[in-house]
């Protein structure tokens, strides 16, 4: 679906954002892309969709080089940036202008999503509030039925009921031949939707693992202060420590994405070490 090989990129030659970065994303999944401010999440997405070109290496979508921006690649990809520009058009006019570029566009679905999001169909986009604009473009992006749907911070600016609607709509929109990539800081908004976590840190992809695989190997729990030494990573909590431990008993615990993210970006290598270790080694 999306294949990045040995990608190097930076806005200036002197300071590279990515060096020899590799990443493969497959259809049928919802990826959560996490990274600190300035780690290059948005830049990575821009590389995927062809808004910037790699200095070295390649980035392909459905087998087409993104940076060549061929129509065959663009018609099967939709990108919703964090900051959006909405023209002074109504939903109907926007469809007339933009939908012809997307051969799989489903107009009924577009209006259905709009009504689920409670966005008025007769109003002019540019006059709407930021949240309404964002929902309108998410509705359009989903209705294009492209195989790749990439969203940068889609839940920013959404009010509380909209976040529930967003989760329902995304749950209904994932199909076997669709790949949804969501970059976010608000992991709790998307908790049970994301199935695979991708973390960018220090110019590399430090994690690309399904949540199932993560919870098989790690236990997320609260432990008393006295046991903190056994933990791979621990943070102070109200009572004792919130900790990540190796999952030796094979018990299930929900992956605490924020805790895991903090562990990885604090330079803790024991957590990533366990996640990267092949399965056969673990049973020994």
């Amino acid at each position, binding site marked *: 679906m999306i294949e990045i090989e040995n990608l190097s990129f930076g806005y200036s030659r002197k300071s590279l954002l990515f060096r020899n970065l590799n990443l493969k994303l497959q259809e049928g999944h919802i990826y959560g892309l996490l990274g600190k401010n300035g780690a290059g999440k948005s830049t990575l997405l821009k590389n995927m969709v062809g808004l910037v070109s790699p200095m070295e290496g390649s980035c392909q979508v459905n087998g087409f080089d993104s940076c060549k921006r061929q129509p065959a690649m663009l018609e099967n990809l939709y990108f919703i940036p964090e900051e959006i520009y909405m023209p002074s058009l109504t939903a109907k006019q926007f469809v007339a202008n933009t939908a012809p570029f997307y051969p799989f566009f489903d107009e009924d679905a577009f209006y259905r999503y709009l009504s689920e999001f409670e966005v008025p169909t007769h109003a002019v986009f540019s006059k709407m509030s930021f949240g309404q604009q964002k929902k309108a473009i998410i509705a359009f992006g989903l209705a294009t039925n492209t195989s790749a749907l990439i969203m940068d911070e889609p839940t920013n600016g959404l009010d509380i009921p909209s976040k529930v609607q967003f989760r329902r709509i995304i749950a*209904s929109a994932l199909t076997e031949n669709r790949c949804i990539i969501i970059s976010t800081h608000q992991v709790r908004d998307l908790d*049970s939707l994301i199935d695979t976590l991708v973390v960018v840190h220090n110019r590399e992809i430090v994690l690309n693992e399904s949540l199932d695989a993560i919870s098989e190997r790690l236990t997320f729990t609260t432990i008393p202060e006295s046991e903190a030494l056994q933990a791979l990573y621990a943070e102070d909590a109200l009572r004792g420590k919130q900790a990540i431990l190796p999952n030796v008993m094979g018990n299930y*615990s*929900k992956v605490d994405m924020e805790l895991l993210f903090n562990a990885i970006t604090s330079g803790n290598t024991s957590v990533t070490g366990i996640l990267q270790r092949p399965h056969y080694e673990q049973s020994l």
Partner: protein
Amino acid sequence: MEFKENEPIYLQIAAHVCDQILLGKWASEDKIPSVRDLAVTFQVNPNTVMRTYEQLQNQEVIYNKRGIGFFVTPDAVQKVKAQRKERFLQQDLPAFFRNIFLLEIGLEEIQKRYEAYKTENYEQEIEQKP
């Protein structure tokens, strides 16, 4: 929808499906909600519900009619009950035994209390039984 943190979501959804079957809301040979519909209801990844349905299929609680959807098997209620009984005997009963052993509660007392509990809570059901 709030999920418990100590059990995989797909198992919690499976328990929900089994509850509907035990309660008779979804009868045998009924078509149950599609993977997508249930994913929307619970606001979860459809892959999670797919995993639920795969497991329930293996347990012969539901079956798949290709291209039509998932249906409740004729003996789903017995299947669910058998599994829950098994789980109770394996997991909950040992903990219960441990407690009554430590607290020195005799089986006679348990028996007496159990009879009282039954008449108090399930009087009607007991009368109905042949």
